[in-house]
């Protein structure tokens, strides 16, 4: 017994000294293990949620699949880690996930002091309020004295405090760690109001006993640009995730879809040729094959396609493009050119 104590201690000491360092190349790790480990929510319809077959779907999930398509040429090589709002940053910082794609708001403090970098915006959102119709409330300014259910560790908690203070209204906040408990508590009448990102309100409303008895108030009280996040200090991996999303937005702008991508590849539009890798060596520049964007669009789709399939008007959520339309259609989605 005594004999093993010393070696064990030495072993622990050695581990202490060689603790994992941040600068390891994520791309090499990902290639070595053969899949992308992606941090997602614990179930937010339209963004990251499991379907009846047990597969993850959603607009955030499609970002992960795009990254896998760029790295491996196979969008299915992704493993998912469901994370609560509270756990998500630690999971990314500690290397438990390679990319965090979990309806996460890009804020300055998260970008600068957590050792993380945001790579873009896959959904422009804003915070809203949901109430029971029976309360007869039509504006957020009538919420003086209300009880408000929300998630801990979110921008939501801070925005609601700002909003009520700015408007000189009283309120009581009840903050849960897991989204499912927020929904249950609101559903059982603990709170008058449920607040989170407006997209989240539409998604979570589907989980209520009588979704028809609740409505979302018109006020949007914050900017919530949601996007994928990677660890600080690995620029190559940052580039891969950033350009995987940009490729999807550029593809929509150029009219390249998963259906016509093969025809387009044989066309002679130079912009499209650069995107799809028949001209230039853009893939090599970020450490992947040159047909990276072709694989993304063929297997996952362009931005418009993933929007329509997951959150668009024809889905349960029924959200219109709004600010998420391309800049050419008066929206905010705009990707730098591939050149």
């Amino acid at each position, binding site marked *: 017994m005594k004999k093993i104590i*010393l070696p064990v*201690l*030495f072993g*622990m*000491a050695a581990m*202490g*000294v060689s*603790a*994992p*360092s*941040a*600068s390891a190349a994520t791309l090499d790790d990902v290639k070595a293990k053969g899949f992308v480990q992606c941090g997602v929510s614990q179930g937010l319809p339209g963004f990251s949620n499991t379907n009846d077959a047990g597969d993850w779907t959603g607009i955030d999930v499609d970002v992960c699949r795009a990254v896998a398509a760029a790295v491996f040429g196979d969008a299915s090589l992704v493993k998912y880690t469901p994370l609560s*709002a*509270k756990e998500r*940053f*630690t999971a990314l*910082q500690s290397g438990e996930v390679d990319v965090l794609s979990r309806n996460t708001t890009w804020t300055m*403090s*998260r970008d*600068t*002091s*957590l*050792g993380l970098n945001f790579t873009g915006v896959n959904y422009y959102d804003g915070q809203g309020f949901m109430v029971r119709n029976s*309360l007869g409330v039509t504006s957020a300014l009538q*919420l*003086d*004295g*209300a*009880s408000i259910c929300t998630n*801990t*560790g*979110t921008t939501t*908690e*801070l925005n*609601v*405090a*700002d909003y*009520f*203070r700015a408007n000189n209204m*009283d*309120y*009581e*906040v*009840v*903050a*849960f*760690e*897991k989204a499912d*408990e927020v929904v*249950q*508590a609101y559903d*059982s*009448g*603990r709170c*008058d109001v449920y607040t989170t990102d407006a997209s989240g309100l539409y998604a979570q409303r589907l989980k209520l006993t009588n979704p028809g008895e609740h409505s979302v108030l018109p006020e949007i009280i914050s900017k919530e640009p949601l996007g994928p996040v990677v*660890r*600080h*200090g690995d620029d190559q991996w940052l580039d891969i995730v950033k350009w995987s999303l940009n490729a999807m937005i550029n593809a929509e702008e150029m009219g390249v879809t998963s259906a016509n991508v093969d025809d387009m590849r044989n066309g002679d539009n130079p912009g499209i040729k650069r995107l799809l890798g028949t001209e230039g060596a853009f893939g090599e520049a970020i450490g992947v094959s040159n047909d990276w964007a072709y694989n993304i669009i063929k297997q996952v789709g362009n931005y418009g396609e993933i929007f329509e399939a997951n959150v668009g008007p024809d889905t349960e959520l029924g959200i219109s493009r709004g600010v998420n339309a391309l800049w050419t259609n008066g929206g905010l989605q705009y990707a730098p050119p591939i050149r």
Partner: protein
Amino acid sequence: MAAQEPVGDGAETARVSLLYDPKVRALVAQVALILLVIWLGYSMVNNTLVNLEKQSIASGFGFLGTTAGFSIAPTLGTFIVDYAEESSYGSAFYVGLFNTLLVAFIGIILATIWGFILGVARLSNNWVIAKLSTVYIETLRNIPLLLQIFFWYFAVLRSLPNPRESVEFGANIVLNTRGLFMPRPLPEAGFGWVSIAILIGLVGTFFMRRWAHQRQESTGEQFPVFWTSVGLIVGFPILVFLVLGMPLDWQIPELRGFNFRGGMVIIPEFMSLLLALVLYTATFIAEIVRAGILAVSHGQSEAAHALGVRSGPTLRLVVIPQALRVIIPPLTSQYLNLTKNSSLAVAIAYPDLVSVFAGTVLNQTGQAVEILLITLAVYLTISIVTSVLMNWYNAKMSLVER
């Protein structure tokens, strides 16, 4: 040990090299071990700092002074700290700390009382009472605590009415999904005398008990200690209060808009967490109490009965004091368990230390290392203080043994 044994001829033993001297070897090994532990600790701290720096993650304790910006549900903690959104992360820490201490303190008291009742009931000669207690203990002890917390929380919530249909208990006490609302006492000038009266009552009781004890030792005469104590601690302050013309006002909660405002409120999160902790921990305490009572030999009570002591005093003066010596040590670990289990509060939004500080504050600042260190230190301190107090009590109880 072995070094002193003369093996073979004495001359050889003296010549044994230092390398084989067990004492020297033990000393060297221990020094090496200590150095190793220190180096291990140092390299861990150093590593953490270097890696945080390399990943450009903020570190240090400066964040405790910055504005929190989030709100916390109304609880004892927010009341004591006078917490508002403009308060600092440091104040948020105190809110969490007080809320943890509150639920642990009340939980320990109630679980002890309920546990003693259950433990005695399980030993009862009444078949129904004994079996009821057994079934209760065996069921609740074997269901995970987190499930029980959820059960009570959602069971409580779903059965409570909304604020407009509140249950009224009279005396301005109302109950609804937002909590139990009560009038808040607002002391007026002169109320300080009542507090002083309570203090005098407490001190008086202490001396009265000593006197009564001594008198009984020397003369055998008994004194109504209990009722005199009640009179001193409760009656006397009430008298002062009445004489001064009742210098106390009440802030009554009233329904305005969505909810009751003013007064005091106990939120449902607190009620259900407390309920779950007490009902669960009491089962373990009951078993400890049962074991303690069974450990006192039956001859003790028989001897007491033979001397003509009635059943009540036998239990109080003969059995319990001896049982306590067996009960206290394991009871301490149940108290520690209850305190640590109170961190499950995070699941149902009771703003305890883990929820507010190791949850919200951690997430808003991202300073996981510092915050978890502080949180660990707090739980460690609470546990050590509890143990020290209980050990002191245990020592005091053992001295009674003659």
